[in-house]
C-alpha cells in the first residue's frame, strides 16, 4: 500500500532530493532531449558518467535505480534483436549469414546505440521519481505550467485533480481489498481459470468500487466546499517553491552537459576532435 502512495520515492536526505522539483523536471526534459542528440558512443559514456555521479550524490542505491530497467528489459532486447536482424546493406560484407538472416557490423553498432539510448532514457526519469515525492512533482508541474493559465488552460484544476488522485490511490486500494475479501467470503474465485475467467470474476469487484468512488467524490466535494474552496480564485499556497544556490548550480551542470553533447554532435568550433582523442 505504502509503495503506491509515495510512488517509488526513496526517502533519504541528499542534495538531489533537496533540489527544487521544477529544476529536476526541467533537467530531466533536457536530459531526454540530449540523449536523442547523441550519435557517438563517447556521448553515451559522458551521459552515463553524469548519471552515475547524480545517483552517487542522491544516495539512492545503484541497484534500486537499475531495478527500474526490469520493466523495459523485454522492450530493449526486442528492439535490439529486431534492429540487428533487419539491418541490411548492399555494400558491406555481412559478418555472419545463415539463409536470409545476415548480420552486419553496422547493424550491431546501431543496435547497441539504440539499446544504450533506451536504457539511459529510462534511468534518468526514474532517478527523478526516486528522489522526488509525487506531491512535490505535482507542485513543480503546476508551477511550471502556470504561464499556460494565461491562455485559459485550467492548470490549477489539473494540479488539484492530480493531487487528489494521488491521495485517493491508497484509499481505493484498501477498498478494493475489502470488496474482494467480501466476495471471497461468499466463494468468489479470483485466482484460478484463464485470463478471461479471471477478468470476469473481477466485475463484481469493479462495480461496487465504481459506485463507491462516486459517493466518495461527492462527499469530498462537500468537504472541499465546506473548507471554502472556490477553485484557483484568491487561493494562496503555504509552501512556495524557492530557488536556492544548489538549484542554479544543478541547472548550470545540466546545461553544460547539454552543450557538450551538441558540440560533439555538430562539431561546433571544430571541437569534436576532443571526442576523437578520448
Amino acid at each position, binding site marked *: *500500500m*505504502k509503495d503506491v*502512495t*509515495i510512488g517509488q520515492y526513496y526517502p533519504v536526505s541528499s542534495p538531489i532530493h533537496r533540489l527544487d522539483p521544477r529544476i529536476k523536471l526541467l533537467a530531466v526534459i533536457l536530459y531526454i532531449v540530449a540523449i536523442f542528440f547523441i550519435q557517438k558512443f563517447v556521448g553515451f559514456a559522458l551521459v552515463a558518467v553524469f548519471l552515475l555521479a547524480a545517483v552517487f550524490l542522491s544516495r539512492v542505491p545503484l541497484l534500486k535505480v537499475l531495478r527500474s530497467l526490469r520493466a523495459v528489459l523485454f522492450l530493449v532486447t526486442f528492439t535490439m534483436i529486431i534492429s540487428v536482424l533487419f539491418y541490411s546493406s548492399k555494400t558491406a560484407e555481412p559478418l555472419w549469414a545463415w539463409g536470409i538472416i545476415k548480420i552486419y557490423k553496422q547493424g550491431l553498432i546501431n543496435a547497441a546505440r539504440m539499446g544504450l539510448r533506451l536504457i539511459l532514457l529510462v534511468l534518468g526519469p526514474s532517478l527523478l521519481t526516486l528522489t522526488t515525492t*509525487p*506531491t512535490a512533482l505535482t507542485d513543480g508541474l503546476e508551477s511550471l505550467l502556470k504561464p499556460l493559465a494565461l491562455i485559459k488552460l485550467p492548470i490549477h484544476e489539473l494540479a*488539484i485533480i492530480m*493531487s*487528489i488522485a*494521488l*491521495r485517493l490511490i*491508497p*484509499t481505493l486500494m484498501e477498498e478494493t481489498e475489502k470488496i474482494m475479501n467480501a466476495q471471497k467470503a461468499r466463494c468468489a474465485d479470483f485466482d484460478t481459470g484463464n485470463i478471461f475467467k479471471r477478468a470476469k470474476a473481477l466485475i463484481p469487484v469493479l462495480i461496487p468500487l465504481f459506485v463507491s468512488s462516486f459517493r*466518495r467524490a461527492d*462527499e*469530498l466535494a*462537500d*468537504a*472541499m*466546499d*465546506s*473548507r*471554502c*474552496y*472556490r477553485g484557483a480564485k*484568491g*487561493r*494562496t*499556497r*503555504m*509552501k*512556495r517553491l524557492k530557488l536556492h544556490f544548489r538549484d542554479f548550480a544543478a541547472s548550470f551542470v545540466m546545461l553544460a552537459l547539454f552543450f557538450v553533447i551538441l558540440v560533439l554532435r555538430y562539431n561546433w568550433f571544430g571541437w569534436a576532435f576532443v571526442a576523437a582523442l578520448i
Partner: protein
Amino acid sequence: MIEVRNVKFVYNEGAEDEKEALHNVSFTVNDGEFVALVGHNGSGKSTLARLFNGLLAPSSGIVKVDGMDTSDKKALFDIRKTVGVVFQNPDNQMVASVIEDDVAFGPENLGLASEEISERVEWALKSVGMAEHRKGTPFRLSGGQKQRIAIAGVLAVKPKVMVLDESTAMLDPLGRDEVMNVITRLNREEKMTVIMITHFMEEAALADRIIVMRDGRVAAEGGKEIFRKRELIESAGLELPVAARIAAKLRERGLDIEGDVTLPGELIDALCP
C-alpha cells in the same frame, strides 16, 4: 449565531421520488453554545448539517448564520468561513497526502500569506494533539487520529461554529473519546460554538442543550432534564445514556436520586455522595 426558521427541505423536488426530509423546523443556536442534535437515521439531522453552511439551501424558510442568509450565493464564502463542518468519514475529507498540506487547504483557500497559513496549521494540529504528525501521511493513522486531522483542517479556517456531522460514527470507542475530548475542550477553552450531530446519547449528554429530531421535526428541545422523558427519547428511536437508564431504574425501585444524571461520573456522585 445560527437561526433556523420554518425550514422545509425536500429532496428531488418535483420528481417522482421526492422526499420531504424536514418539515417546518425552527430553532436557534447561540454563541458559544454546545448543542447536540440527536435522532435516528432518516430523522433529517444530516440534512440540517448541510443547511448550516449552505451546501444545501432550504426549500422554504430561512437559515441565517451570523445574520447572513445561506440562500444568498454571494454570502456563501463568508458563511463557510464562519461555519466549519466535519463529516462522517475522515477518508473522504482529505485532499492531500501529507498532513500539513491537508490542514493548509482551508487557509490556502482564504488567500492568507504563507507564514500565516503555516502558523495556523501548527496551531490547529496542536489543538487536536497531532502536532508531531505534521510531516507524516494520514494513511497510517487510526480512525480517531484521522478524524482529529479532519477537525484540524476545519479549525485552521478559524470558524466560529463547528458542526460535526456524525463525526464519531465510524470510530471505535477510543477514537470516539479522542474526538469528544478535543471537541469539549474547543468549546470550553476556545469558546467555539459546537453543533454535534449524533445518535450516541452518551455524546449528547456532554452538550449544554439537546435537540431531538424525529421524522424531520423537532420532537423536543432542552437541557439535560430531557433525559428524564424516557418515552419521548425512545419514541424518537433513541436510547437514554447508560447512566440515565440506570438512574431511572433505581428511581423506579424507590431510590432517591436527585438531579439529572446523564454521565457516569454524575451517577457515581449521586450514589456515593
